[in-house]
């Protein structure tokens, strides 16, 4: 009997995309339920009462929220195509870097993306410093975990397409192949994995969406 797996997501959420990738990499069949964030379904509110956000995974009638928590659940439940290494120390390193993506890189990139003028100018150096840390970590490695794609790569995956989307919108180039050879190579390696490649949201649609988000933030900031 196939155990039902459902994923509540939006077409563009980078957090939800992590779950799509993990499920695809492990060859797990699932049903997608697309949510309209401006009009959240009663089911979403029931399954994620604390945060009321996507993604939410439903398995065996139970709901799991928070993308990194869901990734760990998937890893604990389905043993094929492991996303984590064997050794506790290497697992800890994967956890450390997955956390770094969300706690350090994402806020820094958002800060550059959602500002303009002097504020944006000041936001750029810290973001580049963080990219340099990641560049250092990736030196000599194909993926964060080594030779195969893993949890940390999936956590950072948003960077592989969103960085270019945000660069296109702002006209700002935070990284290039000369200054960030390892990071650039990682982006190519990651994007080339079939499960990833076949599940990118459409580029133009992302550009339109994030352009609108930036304009909304800048307008809100201007009225303060």
């Amino acid at each position, binding site marked *: 009997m196939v155990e039902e797996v459902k994923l509540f997501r939006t077409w563009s959420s980078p957090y939800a995309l992590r779950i799509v990738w993990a499920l695809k990499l492990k060859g797990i069949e699932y049903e997608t339920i697309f949510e309209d964030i401006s009009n959240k379904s009663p089911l979403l509110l029931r399954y994620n*009462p*604390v945060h009321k956000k996507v993604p939410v995974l439903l*398995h*065996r009638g*139970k709901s*799991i*929220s*928070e993308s*990194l*928590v*869901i990734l*760990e*659940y998937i890893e*604990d*439940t389905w043993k094929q195509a492991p996303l984590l290494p064997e*050794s*506790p*120390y290497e*697992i*800890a390193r994967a*956890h*450390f870097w997955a*956390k*770094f993506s969300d706690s350090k890189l994402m806020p820094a990139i958002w800060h550059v993306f959602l500002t303009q003028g002097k504020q944006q100018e000041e936001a750029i150096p810290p973001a580049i410093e963080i990219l340099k*840390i990641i560049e250092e970590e990736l030196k000599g490695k194909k993926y964060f975990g080594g030779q195969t794609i893993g949890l940390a790569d999936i956590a950072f995956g948003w960077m592989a397409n969103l960085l270019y989307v945000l660069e296109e919108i702002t006209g700002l180039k935070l990284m290039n192949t000369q200054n960030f050879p390892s990071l650039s190579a990682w982006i190519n390696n990651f994007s080339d994995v079939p499960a990833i490649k076949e599940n990118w949201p459409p580029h133009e649609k992302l550009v339109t969406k994030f352009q609108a988000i930036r304009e909304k933030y800048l307008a809100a900031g201007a009225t303060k």
Partner: protein
Amino acid sequence: MEEVKLLGTWSSPFSYRVLWALELKGIPYQYTEEDLYNKSPFLVKCNPVHKKIPVLVHGGKPICESMVILEYLDGPWPHNPLLPSDPYERAVARFWAKFADDKGTVIWTMFRSTGEEQKEAVKGSLEMLRTIEDLALGDKKFFGGERIGMVDLAFGALAHWLGVFEEIVGIRLLEPESFPRLHKWTKNFKEEPAIKENLPDKDKMLSNFRCLREKLLASP
């Protein structure tokens, strides 16, 4: 057996999360008190990315970030596990541990601010406590069930640091009548020998954090 070292500070709840875990598992360790205003070369070498405590060094290998360390410990020392074995229960535990980290900062904001900012932080703190009271604890003795687990350690600051902050800013958040389960949990938590025997001195904390608050409010 490989050597275990803990780099921490006496007043950090994050440092204590790891200390309590080591005590609960009966793991021998060597503790080094770090001076965060004058970080040791060893700390910087072990945690070049963040330069923060706590850091656990096991057999010469450093592990950073308190919750990453807690997850790590069940690997080499599976007895008295901090996480349950069932995948769903593990997900629930990780969810609340993340909640503690993501939302817990609002209490720090309440502590280091005044006026409107503090008012907002108080509101946020009460909402956070309400969520934990209503959704996280249930009728269990601990978040982990009958035994202390990772989530209890993650929320440890509520059991000891919150009271100190409340006293300093003169705002009471964790009223027993409003949060009976959480209040009972703080008592149960602090009664466990591994916790009871490893809490920073309350008067020292009051003095230290009072000083810190003044400093934070004075700086631009």
